């Protein structure tokens, strides 16, 4: 077992798994009502090791290895939240959340509303999501739009270890249910985590790389694809402004509209299928609010409207830097 991350230093270079682990540990230290639930999250530390070492540190009353039943995990977490706990549930993989979908959408999301404000539902549901890891069916999906469509839920996704550390703590501190999408393909690359800073607000989007010609927006693992695209575009003299959405519900439109006011061109990107997607929502809203500043139609780059394909062809399914740049070229052609 690896030693706990030292968060007393100003900063450290960590993979996202360790940053999430450190964020969970900090939240558990800060509030004794925080507890973790999920499959294999105890001695194993989760299949991605995000909860590694936490059962040893906090015991099996704070880290609950549960029976293998997603609806059971979410449904009992709701009961625990009614009792005053702040459960953090791990869903093992994106495609396994659906057995718990009813409890999330019909119960968790509405519980405060049904109680006319008489209770809070501080439940975090962590979902490793997305492709690029060459895995089998139901292990590479991006189901965030289902949850963003459900009133009562908050939906976020960090793109880097620093945000992962802070957003995890902010999500746990929220009195509302938060669906926390963790981009699996970004679990392992290291990035600087600045423990000494305070985090950006949970639902704020941010400019990840400033530019002037075309605004490109994405969340989770797409952000690193967009940053690569920006580097490639720069070699051709095209300046992309990359916006990291961070929050999918609600969406912070300030930086997006500010950027579009400057560039007049917007490409929205996501791994998920594009039909009725987060990208569609952003495209519609920007068209409503920034119509006269747009020099080109808002374009979407998405996964195709198909099931996530066999991993052998996933690179053809997932938006690549080239696919993003193809859309950038189209936007600039107007």
């Amino acid at each position: 077992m690896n030693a706990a991350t030292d968060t007393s230093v100003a900063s450290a270079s960590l993979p996202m798994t360790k940053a999430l682990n450190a964020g969970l540990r900090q939240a558990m230290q800060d509030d004794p009502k925080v507890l973790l639930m999920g499959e294999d999250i105890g001695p194993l530390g989760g299949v991605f090791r995000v909860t590694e070492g936490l059962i040893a540190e906090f015991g099996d009353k704070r880290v609950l290895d549960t029976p293998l039943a997603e609806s059971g995990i979410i449904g009992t977490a709701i009961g625990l939240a009614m009792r005053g706990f702040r459960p953090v549930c791990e869903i093992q993989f994106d495609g396994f959340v659906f057995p718990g979908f009813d409890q999330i959408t019909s119960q968790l999301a509405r519980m405060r509303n049904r109680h006319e404000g008489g209770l809070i539902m501080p439940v975090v549901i962590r979902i490793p999501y997305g492709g690029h890891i060459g895995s089998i069916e139901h292990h590479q999906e991006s189901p965030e739009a289902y949850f963003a469509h459900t009133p009562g839920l908050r939906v976020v996704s960090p793109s880097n270890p620093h945000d992962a550390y802070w957003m995890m703590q902010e999500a746990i501190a929220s009195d509302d249910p938060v669906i926390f999408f963790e981009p699996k393909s970004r679990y392992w690359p290291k990035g600087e985590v600045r423990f000494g800073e305070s985090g950006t607000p949970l639902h704020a989007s941010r400019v990840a790389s400033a530019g002037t010609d075309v605004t490109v927006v994405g969340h989770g693992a797409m952000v690193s694809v967009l940053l690569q695209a920006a580097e490639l575009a720069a070699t051709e003299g095209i300046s992309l402004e990359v916006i990291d959405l961070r929050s999918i519900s609600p969406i912070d439109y300030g930086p997006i509209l500010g950027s579009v006011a400057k560039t007049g061109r917007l490409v929205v990107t996501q791994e998920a299928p594009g039909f009725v997607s987060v990208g569609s929502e952003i495209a519609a809203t920007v068209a409503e609010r920034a119509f006269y500043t747009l020099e080109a139609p808002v374009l979407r780059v998405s996964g195709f409207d198909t099931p996530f394909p066999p991993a052998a062809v996933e690179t053809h399914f997932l938006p690549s830097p080239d696919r993003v740049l193809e859309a950038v070229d189209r936007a600039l052609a107007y």
Partner: protein
Amino acid sequence: MISPNGAFEPNAAAEEFLPYLNRLTEADHRRFYHDMVVVRKFDTEAANLQRQGQLALWVPSHGQEAAQVGSAYATRPQDHVFPSYREHVVGMIRGLDVVDILRMLRGVTLGGWVPEEHGNFHLYTLVLASQTLHSTGYAMGMQLDGSTATGNPETDQAVIVYYGDGASSQGDANEALVFAASYQTPQVFFLQNNHWAISVPVARQSRTPLYLRAGGFGMPGTQIDGNDVLASFAVTAKSMDDARSGQGPSLIEALTYRVGAHTTADDPTKYRDPEELAYWVARDPIVRFRSYLQGRGIEQEFLDAVDEEAADFAADARRRALEITGPEQSVIFDNVYAEPHPLVAEQKAWLERYEASFDEGKN
């Protein structure tokens, strides 16, 4: 314990539960009878209100009064109760004003009450068996915060959750039993087998008596005559005692019958055999307990007074149901989130401006 003709004839299986009857005083017996009669009358009145267009829907409890009254009186004030949506008298016994139930069915609220202010009687849950998991999680919380199994029966807590034969087929009900057994939660699963899930008979839900399923999950299961209020009380009292004292969860299957329709939108004459209905009407829980009390010499004046109180209660509920008003349109947006949410705030403000624009037009 009480035979259909009202005689006290406990069978061999009932013996271990008989000591729990010693907890009951004559006043308790009268209260049981009173509450069963009152809720029957209220239930009829509420169905009438629906027929008259005053409620969107009504969910009758006719026939299930003994199962509900007996089990409800087996709870202690510190316990928590997770109902399905037909446990009106359980709510009454826990301190809920029945008009709060009518508020939900009149379409002015999605909930209706604050559980902690009404005997820890939680909200009705309309998606079948969802509440079983909530109850199990809640009971896990009692364990984690040290509120149960301390050895003090005056403060140790437990949970009782109500569900039915139809809901027993749901995945959530089964997952709740798995979690409850795994964590040995302090709770009782009170399964009212009223024999019909709308139009589908219990035989389609299960080929085995439902109480036998408990053993497969690793907890005790007991089948009771759910139309015998004393059996319902005694068996639930033992099970709740066991739960509070750290002996884990258990399941009670109360055999009863939904004499009325599933809801006021249902027509059971399309799918039920009148002979079956007649069989169960002859085993009516109120008639049976009245015979039992008469056998013990209860005075007719008491029975008459209860009928009168029930009529008054129902009339009062009707009067107050018709006075239910609201809510304000802002309820659409309030309490969707605990913390500020820009989209909801924008839409709330927009609707206010939009509706105000009609007033401006009048000036």
